[in-house]
């Protein structure tokens, strides 16, 4: 009986192909093909347009990216953005999730409240942040005209690191809600019996968190850190709206620089090489995060 059922599974109804193929072809055509094409483009001085020849240049585009001071600035800014926003979003998101997890009243109210920034438009909130941090903005108004802490307006968006800090703050504020929702779901999946056993053993709150909660949500931590890392490398709107890479490309991140090189300079080969380098970095980080967290898990 079992054997015959197994054989039946091997016969594939052709209608399955009809359902499967459109989606599969869509993904191949619009995801895998462009990715492959981009890899090819990165080895050519790619010229777009009619009857254009694109000479093969080997690794020249990669060399140009790696020796370009603005690409280095953009890379440094992106790393800084990722290293600040990813851990802070996770820690704050987890804290909020723990707080909400522990309350029974008004839980939905808090969940909605914290999730609101996530569903608001990036452009709208980035514009709001620009109005807060600009020279004649809300923050300077409060500091100079209301609190009289400083006499002159502070140029929050005028220099590289202070402008990036504003973008980071925006990224963190907007990301807490998403982290909260994911962690809240993970917390609910940690078996209650473990906490009961810990109570009987006399474990305090700190011990319960580090020995039960954290190991219990390790898989989620891994997932969230990978997703946030990818998200941090894809940051575009906050920088475009807050500074547009100014002054003199000093606040550029990899995506804004790539967009500039693609559509302003039409330097397709360079942009393709930059994309491949970013892809490699993200893959490397993903592997690293999995490796570190898995080892920690095995050690625990």
């Amino acid at each position, binding site marked *: 009986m079992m054997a015959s059922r197994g054989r039946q599974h091997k016969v594939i109804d*052709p*209608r399955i192909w*009809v359902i499967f193929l459109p989606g599969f072809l869509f993904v191949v055509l619009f995801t895998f093909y462009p990715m492959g094409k981009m890899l090819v483009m990165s080895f050519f001085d790619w010229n*777009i*347009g*009619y*009857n*254009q020849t694109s000479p093969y240049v080997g690794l020249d585009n990669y060399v140009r990216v790696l020796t370009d001071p603005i690409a280095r600035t953009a890379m440094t800014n992106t790393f800084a953005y990722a290293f600040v926003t990813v851990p802070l979003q996770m820690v704050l998101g987890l804290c909020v999730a723990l707080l909400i997890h522990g309350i029974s009243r008004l839980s939905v109210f808090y969940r909605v409240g914290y999730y609101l920034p996530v569903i608001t438009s990036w452009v709208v909130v980035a514009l709001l942040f620009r109005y807060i*941090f*600009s*020279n*004649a*903005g809300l923050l300077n108004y409060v500091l100079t005209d209301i609190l009289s802490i400083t006499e002159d307006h502070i*140029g*929050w*968006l*005028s220099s590289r690191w202070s*402008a990036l800090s504003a973008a980071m703050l925006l990224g963190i504020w907007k990301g807490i809600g998403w982290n909260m929702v994911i962690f809240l779901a993970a917390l609910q999946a940690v078996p209650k019996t473990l906490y009961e056993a810990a109570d009987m053993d006399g474990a305090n709150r700190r011990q319960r968190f580090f020995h039960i909660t954290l190991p219990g949500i390790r898989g989620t931590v891994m997932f969230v850190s990978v997703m946030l890392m990818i998200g941090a490398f894809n940051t575009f709107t906050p920088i475009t709206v*807050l*500074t*547009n890479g*100014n*002054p*003199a*490309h000093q*606040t550029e991140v990899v995506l804004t620089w790539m967009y*500039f090189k693609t*559509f*302003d*300079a*039409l*330097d397709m080969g360079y942009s393709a090489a930059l994309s491949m380098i970013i892809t490699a970095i993200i893959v490397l980080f993903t592997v690293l995060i999995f490796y570190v967290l898995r080892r920690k898990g095995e050690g625990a």
Partner: protein
Amino acid sequence: MRPKLILTFVLLFVAGFFIASCDETTGDTVTIEFWHNYSASDGQIAVLEALIEDFEAENTGIEVEHVYMEWANLKNSVVLGAQTGVLPDVLRGDIAFVPQFQSLNALLAMDTFDDYDTVRQTVLAQPNSSNLMDGTYYGIAANTNTKILFYNETLLEAAEVDVPTTLDEVWLAAEALTEGDVIGMVEPWTGIWNVGPYIWSEGGEVLSPDNSTATGYINSATNVAVIQKLADIYAAGALAGPSMDPGAVGDTDGWAAGTYALQLDGPWRGASNNAAAITYGATPLPAGSAGSVSVLGGENFMMFEASSDPKQEAAWEFVKFMVSKDAQVEMAKVGQMPVNLEALEDPEAIEAMPLLPVFAEALLTARARPVIPEWSEVENIIAAKVALAITGEKTVQTALDEAAAEIDALLAD
């Protein structure tokens, strides 16, 4: 069940094939697609639609479908279209697009039409020069503009500052007007569109006459002195702009709030100041040691190689209609400065654009930016280096030397 399913797919495929293969030029009607960035808020699109109706009535058998795109989107769509073949039959876009699109091999040489020269004689020569590359015209001027010095009369009166008559007086006025929340001058960007007029008016150049090199031109002593002047007034708090300082108030917001007193800008500044009820005046750029040389802006009509012959013929008829006196006067009423010589002197156009005589005077000496495919990148290099120089991140000489070296490397490729 299965044959029915197959039959359905075959029918869908055949139907799709027929829909896709229906040529828009079948029958007697030719439909042309027109991409543009006329502004809806200024009423330009309404005027365009009325003009299209008139054109279609005069030219039975031609239909025009217009598509609005915002500036950057218009440019990006053509860049992508050059690869995919999805292009319009006519485009009205920034004069700076011509060399860039021509480098994509996408543009049709417009002077291949027999009567191109006749039409060319009816429009201003200077704006139309932005279509000329290697002896071939790849477009025709659609409308033009240049920049003149706008000043906030209220702020000038309050500070007892006279309207400047020389470039040196502009710098002095900017500093004199800077007081409290008022900032003397605003420059939203630091490309040649912005600093070019100051450089040219003092006798400086950006590239060599054959556009082959920047060294010795962009980093000349004259240019260093001009940018140093801008750096000095920036240091004094008398110059602001988001590309030098992303925290600075944008120019339109700043004018409306009465923050900015002076700006070298185009016709749109008049419109936005009117909307904000600002009392302002305007004069051609006060002369430097080499005269008053502003920068040429505006838009051109372009056509594409990818269009079929009947569509190219129809598109050319439409372009001729749009540069004719009547159409240009109608567009002048909604803020588009005419290129048609007769329209420029038309009383209706002058009444609609009170600043037209000021702009017309500035246009006599205005210069186009170099018409080379690499221009966009060249100007971006200059913008970044000049921003570093003005903000004091680098000395002016170092920043301009770096710009010269980078531009030379780019032009040598």
